[in-house]
C-alpha cells in the first residue's frame, strides 16, 4: 500500500480543502478516484449539521422540561385580589417551659393566578407557612417532617431540607446548617431558646444546593417573638400588627412556577406577592398600623414608598426594636431583612387608596408591574383606639446598639466576589467547607469577643444582602458614611450594595459553627456561603450532633 505523499501545494489549495466545499479534486490513490462528490458532501453536511445543531439545542436533557412563560396578559391586574394574613400555628402541646409544634412540609396546589393551579410546597401545606408567635423565655420545639415528594416535579432534584429559624441564636445543630439535611421521609426536632429580644424572625428552608428553589416553592413563614418591653409599648398590636411577606415569582403557561436563575445571578418574577397574593388590596381603618415587612424574595430587593408621599416610620429591624423610631420617605430592603413599619392612615379620607410602591434598587430585573406592591383602601369602620402611637423612644438599651468600634478586639474582612463564575466569600465557597470536612472557617472569635467585620462588595454589577448567623450586629458605617436611617437598629442581614464596604460590630455569644452567606439565595446556592466558629472551652456543639430521623415519627414530642 503506497503512502500518501508529502508534496506541498499552495496555501489556497489548503484553504479550499479546509473549507471542504470545492468539488473536483482528482487525486488518485491505487488507481481509484479520490474526490468528494456532491453526494458525499451532502452526506457529510447532514451529519455535521446534526452534530452542531444538537448540542446547541441542548434541551434533550434528561429531566429538563422546557417551560413557556405565562403571558403577562394572563396575570391579574394589580389591586384586584383581597389581602390575607397567614394562618397562626398552634402548639401541638405545651408544658411548663416549652411549646411543642408539629410542621409537615408537603405539596399543595394553590390558585395564585386566578384560573390556574400552581404546584407549591408549604409548611403544613400552606404558602406562606403558618405564623408562630412565642413569648421570650419559653422554649420551642418544632418537629419538621419532610413529606415532600422524592423528586421536584420540574427540576428533578430530591428536596432534602434544613430548616433555619432566621434571627434566632439557636444551637448549631438546630440552626438549619445547610449540610445537616433531612430527606423526604425523614424528620427533625428543632429546639429554639427564644431568649432574645422581641423581633420578627422567619423560618425557611436552608437545604444545600436548592435553597432558592425550596423557598420559591413556598417554604417560608414568619415567627414572631414578643417580650415585655414590646408588649408594654403603645405601638399597634393584635389586628393592627400585620405580617407582610413580600416575594416575587414568575409563572409558566400551565400555572407552575417558571424557573430561570439568569446564569446563577438571581431569580426575578414579574408578579409581586404579598402573603402569597399578587398585588393585594387591604382595607385599613383610619388609624396606625404596624407592618412586619419581610423580604422573602429569592433575589429581589425593594425600595418602598407610598404614592401619597406619606412617611414610613421604621420602629424595628432584624434584631427587634430600634433605639428610636426613624421616619423615612423611602427605604431599601434586601432579601431576608425584616423591618417593622408604622403607617398612619388616620388623616386619610374614607375611600382613599394608598399604594405601597417599589422604586426598584439597581441590578434587579424589573417588569411592568414590579413597581407596585399592594394597595390600602381606607374605610370608615370603628376601631380600638388603644395602642395607636409611636413613642419617641423604643429600646435605647439594646446591648448590640451600644457597641462601638472601640469595643472590638479585632477587625476581620469578608470579600464578596464573583470569581470564574462562582460566587465566593474570601475566595471560599461552601464546597470548600465541605471538602475541608467542615473545618474551614473565615473567623474564630472566642465566646464573648466583640469584633468589627468589614464586608466588601467590589463590584458595580450586583448587590449582596449578607447574613451572619447567630449574632445581632450594629452597622457602623457604609463607605465611611453613617448607616441609612432605617438601618439604625439591631441587624442580622446587611445590604452590601454595589461598590459598598460596610462595617458592622457584634459580640459573639454562643458556641460552635455558624454560616455566613449571601441571602440572594441563588448566590447562596452557587455557592456564596462559608462559616465561622465561636470558640469556647466547653459545650461546643457540632452542627451534625442531632441528625434527622426516619419516619414513622417517634411518639416523643
Amino acid at each position, binding site marked *: 500500500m503506497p503512502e500518501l*505523499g508529502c*508534496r506541498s*501545494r499552495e496555501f*489556497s489549495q*489548503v484553504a*479550499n*480543502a*479546509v473549507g471542504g466545499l*470545492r*468539488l*473536483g*479534486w*482528482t*487525486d*488518485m*490513490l*491505487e488507481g481509484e478516484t479520490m*474526490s*468528494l*462528490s*456532491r*453526494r*458525499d*458532501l451532502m*452526506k*457529510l453536511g*447532514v*451529519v455535521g*449539521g*446534526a*452534530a452542531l*445543531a*444538537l*448540542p*446547541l439545542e*441542548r434541551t434533550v*436533557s*434528561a*429531566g*429538563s422540561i*422546557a*417551560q413557556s412563560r405565562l403571558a403577562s396578559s394572563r396575570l391579574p391586574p394589580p389591586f384586584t385580589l383581597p389581602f390575607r394574613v397567614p394562618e397562626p400555628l398552634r402548639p401541638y402541646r405545651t408544658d411548663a417551659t416549652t411549646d411543642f409544634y408539629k410542621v409537615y412540609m408537603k405539596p399543595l396546589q394553590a390558585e395564585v393566578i386566578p384560573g390556574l393551579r400552581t404546584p407549591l410546597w408549604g409548611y403544613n401545606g400552606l404558602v406562606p407557612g403558618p405564623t408562630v408567635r412565642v413569648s421570650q423565655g419559653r422554649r420551642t420545639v418544632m418537629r419538621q417532617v419532610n413529606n415532600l415528594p*422524592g423528586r421536584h416535579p*420540574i*427540576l428533578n*432534584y430530591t428536596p*432534602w431540607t434544613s430548616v433555619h429559624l432566621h434571627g434566632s441564636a439557636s444551637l448549631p445543630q438546630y440552626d438549619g446548617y445547610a449540610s445537616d*439535611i433531612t*430527606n423526604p421521609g425523614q424528620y427533625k426536632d428543632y429546639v429554639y431558646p427564644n431568649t432574645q429580644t422581641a423581633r420578627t424572625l422567619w423560618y425557611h428552608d436552608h437545604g*444545600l*444546593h*436548592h435553597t432558592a428553589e425550596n423557598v420559591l416553592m413556598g417554604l417560608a413563614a414568619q415567627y414572631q417573638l414578643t417580650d415585655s418591653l414590646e408588649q408594654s409599648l403603645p405601638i399597634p398590636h393584635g389586628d393592627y400588627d400585620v405580617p407582610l411577606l413580600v416575594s416575587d415569582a414568575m409563572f409558566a403557561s400551565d400555572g407552575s412556577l417558571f*424557573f*430561570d436563575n439568569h*446564569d*446563577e445571578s438571581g431569580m426575578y418574577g414579574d408578579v409581586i406577592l404579598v402573603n402569597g397574593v399578587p398585588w393585594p388590596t387591604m382595607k385599613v381603618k383610619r388609624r396606625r398600623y404596624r407592618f412586619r415587612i419581610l423580604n422573602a424574595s429569592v433575589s429581589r430587593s425593594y425600595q418602598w414608598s407610598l404614592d401619597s408621599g406619606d412617611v414610613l416610620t421604621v420602629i424595628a429591624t432584624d434584631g427587634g426594636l430600634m433605639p428610636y423610631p426613624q421616619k423615612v420617605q423611602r427605604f431599601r430592603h434586601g432579601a431576608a431583612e425584616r423591618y417593622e413599619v408604622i403607617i398612619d392612615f388616620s388623616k386619610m379620607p374614607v375611600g382613599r387608596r394608598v399604594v405601597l410602591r417599589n422604586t426598584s434598587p439597581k441590578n434587579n430585573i424589573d417588569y411592568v408591574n414590579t413597581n407596585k406592591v399592594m394597595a390600602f383602601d381606607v374605610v370608615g369602620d370603628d376601631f380600638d383606639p388603644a395602642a395607636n402611637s409611636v413613642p419617641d423612644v423604643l429600646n435605647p438599651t439594646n446591648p448590640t446598639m451600644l457597641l462601638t468600634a472601640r469595643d472590638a478586639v479585632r477587625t476581620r474582612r469578608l470579600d464578596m466576589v464573583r470569581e*470564574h*463564575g462562582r460566587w465566593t466569600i474570601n475566595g471560599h465557597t461552601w464546597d470548600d467547607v*465541605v471538602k475541608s470536612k467542615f473545618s474551614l472557617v473565615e473567623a474564630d472569635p472566642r465566646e464573648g469577643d466583640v469584633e468589627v467585620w468589614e464586608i466588601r462588595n467590589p463590584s458595580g454589577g450586583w448587590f449582596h444582602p449578607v447574613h451572619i448567623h447567630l449574632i445581632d450586629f450594629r452597622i457602623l458605617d457604609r463607605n465611611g458614611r453613617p448607616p441609612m436611617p432605617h438601618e439604625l437598629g439591631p441587624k442580622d442581614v446587611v445590604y452590601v450594595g454595589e461598590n459598598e464596604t460596610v462595617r458592622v460590630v457584634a459580640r459573639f455569644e454562643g458556641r460552635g459553627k455558624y454560616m455566613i452567606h449571601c441571602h440572594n439565595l441563588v448566590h447562596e446556592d452557587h*455557592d456564596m456561603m462559608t462559616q465561622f466558629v465561636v470558640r469556647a472551652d466547653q459545650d461546643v456543639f457540632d452542627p451534625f450532633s442531632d441528625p434527622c430521623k426516619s419516619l414513622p415519627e417517634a411518639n416523643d414530642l
Partner: protein
Amino acid sequence: MSTSTSARRTDPGTGPPPPAGAVPVSRSRAAAALCCVAGLVHLLVAREHVEVWALAAFFFITVSAGQLWLAQALWRGLNARLVPAAVLLTSGLVALYVLSRTIGLPIPAAGEVGLSESHHAGPQVPGGQGNGVPVLPGSGAGTAIATVGPLDLVCLVAQLGALALLVGLLPAGQRRSLGNLLLAVGLCGWVVWGLVHFT
C-alpha cells in the same frame, strides 16, 4: 451519483489536476492541521477534568495524544490503510461529544469545576439522596450534561472538517459505505433535533 463525473471536473482554484498516482497532500495536510487543533483543545480541557474525575482527564489526554499523532502522520503522509480507522475514531469522538451535550454521559459534568456554571463537583451529598442540584429547564445545570462553550465549538468544527477531509481520502467503495453510515446517523440526529425543537 457517479464519482467519475466529478472526478473529471477540475477545481478551478487549484489549477490542473495532479498527475495520476499523486497523493492528496493538501487535504491530508489540512486534515493534519485540524486534527492538531482538536488534539490541542483536548489537551487543554484535560487539565480542567483532573479535579472532577482523574479518569476523564486520562481519557482526554489519550484522545489528545491520538489526535496529535494522527496529525503528524497525516502531515508526513499517512499509511492509507489507517484512514478508515481515523474516520471511525473522529466520528466516534464527535458522537461522544454530541451525547455529552445532549443526554449526558454517566460521568461527573465535564469541565464544570470552577470554570463554568455547574460547579458542584460531588455527584452525591453525604446523607442525601442524589446530588440535590436542580435541573433548570433549558440550562442542563446539575446533570451530567455539559455546557456548550466556544472551545468545544472550535474543537467540534475542527473534527468535522478533519472528518470530511479524511472521508475524501478513502477509496471510493469505502467512502460510499462509510458515507451512508454517517448519513444514517446524521438523519437520526436531525429527527431527534426536530422532535426537540418542534414539540
